[in-house]
């Protein structure tokens, strides 16, 4: 699992790739948080396009980043969810927390 983080006009985008489980989540979350704390973006985007596997550790990751963006008075967006990941996210009712679009969760 790896993450690439880009900042453009107050939008911080984290492109996640690989298998997101408990083992991977720790370092990923540190990397994203460090970048967000530094940049104070208006929007944090988590892009799941290249995530090949995710269990509930990914839900923890999203919930934690939501809390962080609340703290920074910004917004969290989740983009490009593959079908199997959407299934896990739906379980958590995450569509109520984060703005999921463009291949995100739809009712």
């Amino acid at each position, binding site marked *: 699992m790896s993450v690439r983080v880009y900042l453009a006009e107050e939008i911080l985008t984290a492109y996640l790739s690989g*298998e997101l489980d*408990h*083992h991977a989540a720790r370092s990923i979350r540190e990397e994203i948080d460090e970048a967000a704390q530094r940049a104070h973006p208006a929007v944090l985007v988590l892009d799941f396009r290249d995530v090949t*596997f995710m*269990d509930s*550790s990914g839900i*923890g990751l999203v919930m934690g980043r939501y809390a962080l963006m609340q703290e920074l008075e910004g917004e969290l967006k989740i983009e490009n969810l593959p079908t199997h990941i959407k299934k896990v996210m739906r379980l958590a009712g995450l569509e109520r927390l984060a703005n999921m679009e463009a291949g995100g969760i739809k009712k």
Partner: protein
Amino acid sequence: MKPLNEMRLSFPSKSANEAFARTAVAAFVAGLDPTVDELTDIKTAVSEAVTNAIVHGYRESIQTIYITAAIYPDNRVVIRIRDKGCGIEDIRQAMEPLYTSCPQEERAGLGFAVMQSLCDKVRVTSRLGKGTTVTLTRILSGRES
């Protein structure tokens, strides 16, 4: 009913082995010709159970996790994930969605909810100080041959 095939696996409770465990179980189950979705569901449920054993059962100390899996002629897959860790005091509470005993670790408290939604049956037995066994049963759709 006699199983068509069985396997047994044990490995140290290092978080790096979460990927190994779910992939090994998926490779074994592939013998029943599951769909991609079914295989993903099984991998996800196994990943949840193994993570629970690592984080809660053994509280991140390195001990042994045991997995057995069996496939049956009626397309049933039964996977048992066992630890000899601290055990669960209140199983009903532990299985409640969003309940977590360690929120600081960003555990969503959804492990059992995910297992239950992806499996046909989830059975949990536990004894304090002795360990926990999670038994996952999933019935595969069975493709026309």
